[in-house]
């Protein structure tokens, strides 16, 4: 099987780093005094969240590039970035309740700031797909998608701020082990987890982008074969 470096490297990295994170989480780091074993999910939950931000950021930067250069490949990159970000976002919303149940005994903790922000972003980026697929393929669809992806990037910090400001409505739960005063072993495991998730994101993006570009190329060839250039 021939695979390109853009796919092989993330594949290798993620297949090493993610199991490594698991190992480090369960056998190397100490158990948290307050939250016990359930705290371990922190090494996945937060990296997944951060990775989805990175993916959305990649989607937004590609969108800006599309608006500037107007070449189709940037639109595909932007779409794939947003798609990966949404996949990771879904994982956040799935692992969140697991952590919440284990830590606080409820399936949904409205005090979890992160998860509130993610609710907003998840709704927003799902709307991205609704927008994209309600427009016919072409210039308008690519432009509208790009603009929406870019606006999303403004929404991310504003959502964070809004949730913080609305603390009288949403009493925040403070996490003891997620601050800067984390012991080194926790921090290292977290970083390995983050690197692993980033590699997984790179893998997803690379694979999906490859697929989309191939499909576009096939379409181009079909058209040329029919004698309809462009």
């Amino acid at each position: 099987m021939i695979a390109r470096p853009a796919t092989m490297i993330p594949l290798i990295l993620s297949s090493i780093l993610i199991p490594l994170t698991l190992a480090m989480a369960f056998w190397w780091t100490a158990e948290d005094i307050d939250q016990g074993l359930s705290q371990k999910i922190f090494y996945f939950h937060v990296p997944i969240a951060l990775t989805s931000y990175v993916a959305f950021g990649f989607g937004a930067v590609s969108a800006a590039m599309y608006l500037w250069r107007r070449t189709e490949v940037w639109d595909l990159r932007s779409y794939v970035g947003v798609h990966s970000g949404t996949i990771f976002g879904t994982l956040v919303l799935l692992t969140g309740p697991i952590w919440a149940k284990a830590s606080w005994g409820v399936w949904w903790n409205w005090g979890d700031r992160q998860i509130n922000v993610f609710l907003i972003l998840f709704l927003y980026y799902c709307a991205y797909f609704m927008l994209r697929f309600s427009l016919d393929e072409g210039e308008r669809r690519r432009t509208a998608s790009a603009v929406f992806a870019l606006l999303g990037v403004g929404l991310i910090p504003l959502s964070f701020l809004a949730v913080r400001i609305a603390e009288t409505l949403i009493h925040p739960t403070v996490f003891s082990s997620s601050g800067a005063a984390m012991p080194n072993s926790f921090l290292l495991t977290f970083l390995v987890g983050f690197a692993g998730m980033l590699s997984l994101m790179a893998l997803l993006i690379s694979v999906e982008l490859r697929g989309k570009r191939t499909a576009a190329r096939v379409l181009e060839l079909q058209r040329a074969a029919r004698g309809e250039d462009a």
Partner: protein
Amino acid sequence: MLPPEVTLTECSKRFGERLALRKANLTIAAGETIVLLGPNGAGKSTLLRLAAGLLRPTAGSARINGVDATSAPRNLRAGMAYAGHRSQLYRGLTARENLELHARLHGQPDIDVLALLEQAGLGDRAEERIDGFSRGMLQRLALVRATAHHPVLLLLDEPASGLDADGRALLDQTLRAGLGIRTQVIASHDHDLPTRLAVRTIRLAAGSIA
């Protein structure tokens, strides 16, 4: 302002699966008038919209004086006019208000709008909301709107449709007045038009220039 040259180079436009215009190559010289003929669906409207910069080509280019039509700077757009199948007017406004808006947006608020309406035979309906206008009157008003700001590039898509005899006379008069003075591209079903004006014909069929 001098009339511009309009050039389409290998210009194609695809809508989803349908190729509306296929590798069009066309140069319209500065001040030239041409008539686009062809059956419905041949790509005339697409070509005009590409020339106006309202559509972005899928491949190739549509340029006005060498500048991409879609990124035409404001001073170039100030001299352009396009009238398509729809009147591009606000139904809830009167004829006069529509033209006044047009004048303001073109930086020429002092255009004597009422005089223009008089000349077009719409003077007595100037203060009426256009949602009461017939199709032919809307066409006439659209023509007035297109020429009110003295454009140097006039793109008209089947301007005679729905016009009565007076309206057609007005159209002919407008086009003649522009010969040699502005660049005019007119899509039409009227096969006599190019002969009457003594201008070049371009025929389109199934997206290709014949």
